[in-house]
């Protein structure tokens, strides 16, 4: 029986929608049913999704308000790879939704995967 899930995503917020879809899926799995532990790990370019200056409207794309609210409501655990932050030149203070995010190193990511019943890269 699979009771804990880790979802990883590494793509930028716009090139594909993998961050949004990972979060929707994670929140959806958590909301109903018997899977009680779903974590999302943010790698590489996916980190830009949580830059507080993120500005979809520059592309005439709607703001990601719904997804952000979904994260807050679902109490989803979102873990950000410290290397991704470093490469993007971002500090914790540059991030939105600080209370839902946790910074992790590769060792912790390795352990999260080992602890989950299943993991996948979206």
């Amino acid at each position, binding site marked *: 029986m699979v009771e804990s899930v880790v979802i*990883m995503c590494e793509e930028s917020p716009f090139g594909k929608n993998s961050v949004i879809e990972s979060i929707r899926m994670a929140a959806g799995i958590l909301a109903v049913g018997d899977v009680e532990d779903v974590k999302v790990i943010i790698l*590489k370019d996916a980190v830009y999704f949580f830059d507080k200056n993120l500005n979809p409207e520059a592309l005439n794309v709607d703001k990601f308000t719904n997804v952000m609210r979904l994260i807050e409501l679902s109490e989803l655990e979102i873990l950000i790879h410290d290397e991704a932050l470093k490469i993007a030149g971002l500090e914790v203070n540059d991030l939105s939704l600080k209370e839902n995010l946790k910074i992790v190193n*590769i060792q912790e*990511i390795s352990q999260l*995967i*080992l602890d989950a019943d*299943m*993991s996948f*890269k979206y």
Partner: protein
Amino acid sequence: MQEKKKIVYLYGFSHTNDAKFDILFEIIQEHSQLNIDMIIIFLHDGVIGTSKRTLTTEKLRNLLNLPISVYALIPDIKARGMDPKTLNDKVKGIGYDQLVDVLVESEKIVSWM
């Protein structure tokens, strides 16, 4: 003695064409510090580069040097015109039947496709 945890990775992207392999490698390298039975199965474009005839990338060579069992899915190898007989010595070709056995026996599956 506690039995080793068994984890299997299904990896489906090209080593030559894709940077996705980087993070996978880092994670598996971390796992290798622990007492874990690790298997990686290359399928889809993941099989590209596993033949002795191809130029192995440095990334793949590094992975093959970790304490990990590496398998490659024979139908995906054949589909791409590669000969399973030319597989790198550290890579074992398996069919769908053996893939099922590996999946069934492993405690955890990580899908990276």
